[in-house]
């Protein structure tokens, strides 16, 4: 889903979609705000600082904690699989499935598997992978990517869901969310019982316990990690935290920042396959540690904090740009401000040079980040990267011309003269655009830019003209 001005234009001119995204993110903002009040969570700011310090410590000593994690997973009878790329992850799962003659995978929501197009990989090789989070299930049926890190189907209405269910499940049209949910429950129950492999992500990997922590509301992550014989958790290496006790900090922040919940309905702390005397749970337990470009992000110390993210989605909800252009106009599965800082670092600034500029630098993202990632600073640094690269030479030229114009009185005078000559009469706002805008909008590449924007009308007289007249009037 690469960004196109067409895609953005479609999003911004779709009133239903704008309303869905605006109200959806707005509700999440309200819920977060209501859950971190001084009365309910007096040490909120202190917790943010602690979370930042803990993540910093874990990332700065990542090799150590990954090895400690591996030792502890193995001590409980599990196995750690190191994967450099998404293709390696798919290869591991395909081999395992082939070796055991397995076919059906149930999955709980995981941005990491979205990142590596896991489903596409394994389905092209004959396995079936079913998403079981309600939002993800709807999106899988609709053949769409998540719109939001936490609320994947944020952009869809119950009527959209009804269309998808009718078409893909061949059922009678149902528009009541409660009933739609129960339809999904019934269909997915059967999948849980039939599945051979359960795949989950991980919110945290706890080094001192060799444990995977899963935070969810629906219960599908619990089912995915319980009913199938094999549980595979797929996680980026940056999910590591040193100790189980650190959860006292992170769990107080994650649910509140994401959905305004002190704790989500289920928080699972899973360490290895079922033990002697335990009556259910998987017989085999694997944790896939994924690099996929993360080690590249470690190279510059001042940018490592991009890896502190705990994927709460608060920066998306609070971002005026995300709220207008939505999730599907970002080039990668990670959208919003966090997407704007990690995508260029994973894929290079050249692939989507506009991305670090998709921000008004209002600072809301940094303010709400529960682990205090300085997103605005990182956006600026990435902008500098883009600016110092070749791609920007055309734009640089424009700015050089501008600078020359501004520093030369004669040129400046004539240019501002043009501005006020085209300055509109009283009826200029009748069609919503100034004549200046219209004039500029007819010029080639500026046309696209002007489509969603307007220039303020220049004053009837330029400042220089007024100054001259004033000087004449009052000698």
């Amino acid at each position, binding site marked *: 889903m690469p960004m196109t001005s067409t895609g953005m234009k479609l999003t911004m001119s779709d009133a239903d979609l704008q309303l869905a995204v605006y109200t959806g993110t707005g509700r999440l903002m309200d819920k977060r705000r209501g859950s971190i009040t001084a009365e309910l969570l007096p040490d909120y700011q202190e917790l943010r600082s602690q979370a930042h310090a803990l993540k910093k410590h874990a990332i700065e000593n990542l090799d150590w904690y990954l090895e400690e994690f591996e030792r502890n997973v193995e001590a409980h009878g599990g196995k750690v699989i190191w994967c450099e790329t998404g293709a390696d992850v798919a290869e591991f799962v395909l081999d395992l499935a082939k070796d055991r003659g397995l076919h059906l995978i149930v999955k709980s929501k995981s941005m990491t598997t979205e990142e590596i197009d896991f489903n596409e990989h394994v389905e092209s090789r004959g396995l079936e992978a079913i998403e079981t989070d309600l939002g993800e299930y709807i999106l899988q049926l609709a053949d769409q990517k998540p719109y939001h890190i936490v609320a994947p189907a944020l952009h869809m209405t119950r009527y959209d869901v009804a269309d998808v269910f009718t078409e893909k499940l061949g059922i009678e049209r149902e528009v009541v969310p409660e009933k739609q949910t129960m339809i999904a429950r019934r269909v997915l129950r059967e999948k849980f019982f039939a599945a051979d492999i359960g795949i989950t992500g991980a919110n945290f990997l706890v080094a001192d316990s060799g444990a995977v922590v899963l935070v969810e509301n629906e219960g599908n992550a619990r089912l995915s990690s319980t009913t199938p014989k094999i549980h595979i958790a797929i996680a980026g290496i940056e999910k590591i935290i*040193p*100790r189980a006790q650190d959860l006292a900090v992170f769990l107080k922040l994650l649910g509140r920042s994401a959905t305004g919940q002190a704790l989500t309905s289920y928080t699972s702390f899973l360490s290895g396959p079922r033990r002697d005397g335990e009556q259910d749970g998987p017989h085999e337990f694997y944790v896939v*540690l994924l690099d996929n470009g993360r080690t590249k992000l470690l190279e510059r110390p001042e940018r490592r904090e991009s890896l502190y993210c705990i994927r709460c989605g608060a920066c998306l909800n609070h971002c005026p740009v995300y709220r207008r252009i939505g999730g599907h106009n970002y080039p990668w599965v990670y959208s919003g401000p966090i997407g704007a800082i990690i995508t260029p670092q994973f894929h290079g600034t050249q692939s989507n040079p506009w991305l670090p500029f998709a921000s008004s630098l209002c600072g809301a993202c940094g303010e709400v980040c529960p682990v205090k990632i300085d997103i605005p600073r990182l956006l600026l640094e990435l902008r500098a990267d883009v600016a110092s690269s070749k791609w920007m030479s055309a734009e640089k030229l424009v700015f050089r011309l501008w600078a020359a114009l501004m520093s030369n009185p004669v040129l400046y005078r004539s240019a501002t003269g043009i501005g006020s000559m085209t300055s509109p009469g009283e009826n200029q706002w009748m069609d919503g655009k100034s004549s200046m805008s219209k004039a500029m909008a007819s010029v080639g590449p500026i046309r696209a830019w002007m489509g969603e924007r307007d220039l303020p009308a220049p004053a009837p007289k330029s400042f220089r003209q007024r100054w001259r007249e004033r000087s004449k009037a009052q000698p």
Partner: protein
Amino acid sequence: MSARENMLGRIRGALGRTGGGPPPLAPPVMLKVQTAALELKIASFRTALEKLSAKTYVADSCPDAALLVREIVDGKLAIATDSPVLHECGILYPAVNVSKAEVGITGADYGLADTGSIVVMASSDPRLVSLLPPVHIAILKLERLLSGFDELLSLLPRPAEQTASMVLITGPSRTGDIEQILVRGVHGPGEVHVILLA
């Protein structure tokens, strides 16, 4: 070289930790363990859970708890784990397939007063009994009611030593994935009852 060596090598190179030695001590986490009166903890637990539309009860004795369970089960097909507290109260149901049961009855290893959570470990209660049936009843001994998650972590700094699966259950299963309209019971139980046993 293996993927493992490659990844660790790249990490150490990028971090300048070529020796790969032990890290300095991790920043300390201050666990906040409040010593509230039991009455306050009970009130807090019940308020938090009832806000989530779960039901809470206080039973003065085992027979009281067993009676409450019978009332909630109300003749539906129920399954009970062999959790010690259920044994103690004589809450026994004939073995049925958990996927067919309409009510799942478990013990709870701990309760967290501030969030209204119960802590259920697979070592004492199989995971599916609190997950598959549409109704979940849990019995929690009052002496196991802690002030919150911080106290749990101070008692059990390494939960992995106890069990392969520790779950904090905070109210019913829920979703808001369609227009953020709250729907309970999407994959797990939509109805949760917690009996606090004195």
